[in-house]
């Protein structure tokens, strides 16, 4: 079952969702072709091979410095035409979600988006995805070929499957762009991106002010993770907008989500309920967050977190 993986770069390396999509593509059987477009992307090509691309199609052009829908839609449609895959996988990242439906419309293909898994059996392509903030799941069948599927980041594992891929330049063109990035205001450099992190340490109003987040930053650094925040915190401007986790913030699915002094309103849960392990620390035993958590501590975050930091440090040094 030949698969085209539409790769994406984030923070100077392959996006996690791309590594996960390549892993899934290999499970589906392959051959696996990866498509990567951008400017100055040569350094990313080997990683595509590491995660199992049999063939790489790339486009390297100064005009592709920033993501642009119309450029990527043309490039992807041209790649589909060239490779004639049975299945096309996208990451359901912000840009992946921008691109996949446009490509589906352009090439007249069906798209199952925001999925947590895709399966091929008996020639049928089915995809599985959450509905209603994860209260139910549905299985979709995608008819017609190619079948397009976009995969939620961190729903599937990324496993190395090293190959020595053939690398080819895709014959394509960059169309005149009608939506152009004039300025890119990057998030805080150096810290791992919230949506790529294995660990998110998140704080709520109960931390009483921005200073309360210092200990969360320390814990996040120790665990190699990112800091998140509830909407109440970002509205109060204790933390930047980009750290908001929730319905109108980021959706994250890390291995560990540590909710510190967060009550657990529905809108917040919507952004993190797919996390593998959820741990809650809150003084209120009735806080809704405890119902969503695997482990909970009813207690004062200002006492518990510093002690947790000490314990984690002790375990790491042992």
């Amino acid at each position: 079952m030949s698969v085209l993986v539409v790769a994406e770069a984030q923070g100077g390396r392959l996006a996690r969702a791309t590594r996960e999509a390549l892993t899934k593509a290999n499970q589906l059987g392959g051959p696996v072709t990866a498509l990567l477009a951008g400017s100055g992307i040569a350094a990313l090509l080997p990683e595509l091979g590491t995660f199992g691309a049999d063939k790489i199609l790339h486009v390297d052009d100064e005009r592709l410095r920033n993501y642009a829908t119309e450029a990527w839609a043309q490039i992807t449609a041209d790649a589909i035409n060239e490779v004639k895959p049975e299945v096309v996988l996208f990451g359901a990242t912000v840009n992946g979600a921008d691109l996949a439906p446009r490509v589906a419309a352009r090439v007249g293909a069906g798209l199952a988006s925001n999925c947590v898994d895709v399966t091929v059996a008996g020639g049928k392509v089915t995809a599985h995805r959450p509905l209603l903030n994860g209260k139910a799941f549905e299985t979709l069948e995608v008819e017609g070929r190619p079948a397009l599927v976009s995969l939620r980041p961190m729903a599937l594992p990324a496993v190395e499957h090293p190959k020595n891929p053939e690398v080819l330049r895709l014959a394509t063109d960059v169309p005149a762009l009608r939506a152009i990035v004039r300025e890119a205001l990057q998030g805080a450099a150096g810290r791992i991106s919230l949506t790529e992190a294995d660990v998110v340490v998140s704080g709520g109003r109960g931390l009483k002010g921005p200073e309360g987040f210092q200990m969360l930053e320390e814990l996040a650094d120790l665990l190699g993770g990112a800091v998140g925040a509830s909407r109440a915190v970002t509205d109060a401007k204790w933390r930047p907008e980009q750290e908001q986790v929730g319905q109108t913030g980021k959706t994250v699915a890390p291995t560990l989500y540590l909710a510190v002094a967060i009550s657990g309103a529905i809108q917040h849960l919507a952004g993190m309920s797919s996390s593998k392990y959820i741990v809650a620390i809150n003084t209120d035993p009735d806080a809704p967050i405890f119902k969503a958590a695997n482990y909970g501590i009813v207690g004062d975050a200002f006492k518990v977190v510093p002690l947790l930091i000490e314990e984690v440090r002790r375990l790491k040094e042992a």
Partner: protein
Amino acid sequence: MSVHIVVCLKQVPDTEAKVQVSGGKIQVDGGAAIMDPYAELALEQALQVKDRLGATVAVVAIGAPQAIDVLQRALGMGATSAVLIEDPSLEGSDGSGIARALAAVVRREEPDMVFCGLRAYDDQAAQVGPYLAELLNWPQVTAAAWLGVEQGATSATVRRETEGGIEVLEVQLPAVLAWHKSFEPGAPETSLNPRYPTLPMLMKAKRTPVPRLTAAELGVEGQVGQAAAAVKRVDASPAPGRPATQILRGDPAEAAKELARLLREEAKVV
């Protein structure tokens, strides 16, 4: 000529309603259906343009007769016209069918911009905006959070939020914007909640008949509904249960120690 905006609305189940799944069917209990929260952000942004520039705002929804509630709410908030696409033949449409029906309305309305939510609460598919833009052959900006547009302008400034940060784009009009957050026109760092309808306007909206359109009237027969869909649901299942919450007992030091142990041995993040 004032700016004209079409806003695509959707009626979805209350986000707090309980959901049950059995025999592959999903049942949502309790609570009145609501205007999808992301669509509501999009509507608020359109109404901001109306407040500033005197724009006209046409709202459209596809649905069963009760979808009229979200259209009336929108009129109560200040939308200037509404239309309901009501046709049983649209049931089972995939993203393509929905976008085609909406595109037909957009072509009639000839707006400068189309706003929609980035995704909808119920299916989170996030397909309508980009699909619609491709059908119309317009540029698109998704994950929009802030808009700057002036009367008579041929382009607009839009801020979008990606995982890496904020991008500021210049987009030629007409364009499709799919909204994820809503910031104040005059203050791009200040988030803006959707306004409430005023009671007099809501009462007036409920007395105003909302025109309905069928697939035939839109010229999309055969392009919508189950038969035209390339993506179909074949099963549904309940959410996998999370194991019961374990509350870690003891004083803060004991609880912290146990948690650290679990983070190492169970979650394997230490």
